């Protein structure tokens, strides 16, 4: 029996989950580069900042002293690459005593919405 045909690529959404702090590890930077590549190729792309990942969007941040590119500034390029769907886990912000005024982009969503996002994404890349 033949396998069912693969869904048309244009119907599929890619979700990139950012779970790590912006510095100390290249995951944040390379994850963001993957998100920019998804956007550049015209794929429907969602990004979710959760757990330590929410620190990536904190503004102001200055990484000059550790000779790293500013992660929040790099993330602000997402819409330029067609990635408009930027989601932030509300609980992760609360746990870190952060509020919407501390971050520079994205829409804050609650745990139920996070679950729905994970459940409905066909491809999930976790960084």
């Amino acid at each position: 029996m033949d396998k069912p045909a693969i869904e048309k690529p244009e119907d599929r959404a890619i979700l990139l989950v950012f779970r790590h702090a912006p510095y100390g590890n290249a995951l944040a930077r390379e994850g963001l580069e993957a998100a920019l590549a998804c956007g550049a190729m015209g794929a429907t792309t969602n990004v979710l900042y959760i757990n330590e990942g929410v620190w990536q969007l904190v503004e102001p941040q200055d990484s000059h002293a550790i000779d790293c590119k500013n992660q929040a500034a790099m993330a602000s390029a997402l819409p330029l690459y067609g990635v408009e769907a930027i989601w932030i886990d509300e609980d992760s912000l609360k746990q870190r005593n952060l509020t919407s005024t501390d971050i520079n982009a994205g829409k804050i969503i609650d745990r139920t919405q996070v679950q729905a996002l994970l459940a409905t994404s066909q491809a999930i890349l976790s960084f």
Partner: protein
Amino acid sequence: MANYCIKSDTMTQRGAHEFCLQNEGLNANSVSCQTIFYQNLLEYLQLASVKLLIKQIANPMNFALLILGPPYSTQASASALRFARAALNGGHSIYRLFFYHDGVHNASAMVTTPQDESSLPQQWSELIEQHQLDSVVCIAAATRRGVLNEQEAKRFGKTGGNLSPGHEVSGLGQLVDASLNADRVMTFG
């Protein structure tokens, strides 16, 4: 004796045979299990004059693996390798392996392990060779970490390439393509 009809494009011969043996509770030395390979299962059924006991995978999936973990330091790469083997042996297929972040070190031919320890890069190369897998190493991540093929090594004036056999270097577009076309993407790292 049980006969199995296996679609040859979803499974390599070895994976299929191991699957049949496991289903029959046989070990690899047993000869009482015969595996039949045929390109088109439906066509084969129409032509077959013998009644076959057919075992099929309920939900064959086409996986893409994103490997972020390096060899040795963490278990991520070893888990990815075991997942790949289990998926192939279970009748699933692998659309692409994509090595990114520290995972690019799995494609370094310079990794050398003590005799009593297994070498993950070597095992990856063997799995890729055995199942003819598509394996891509992110060129930007690999170049930064000193994993270069001959061509890149020459381009950057380095003494020699160190990319393990079976891999090719390419861009993040290959990860996007895999995300769009595989049934599932599994991240290890």
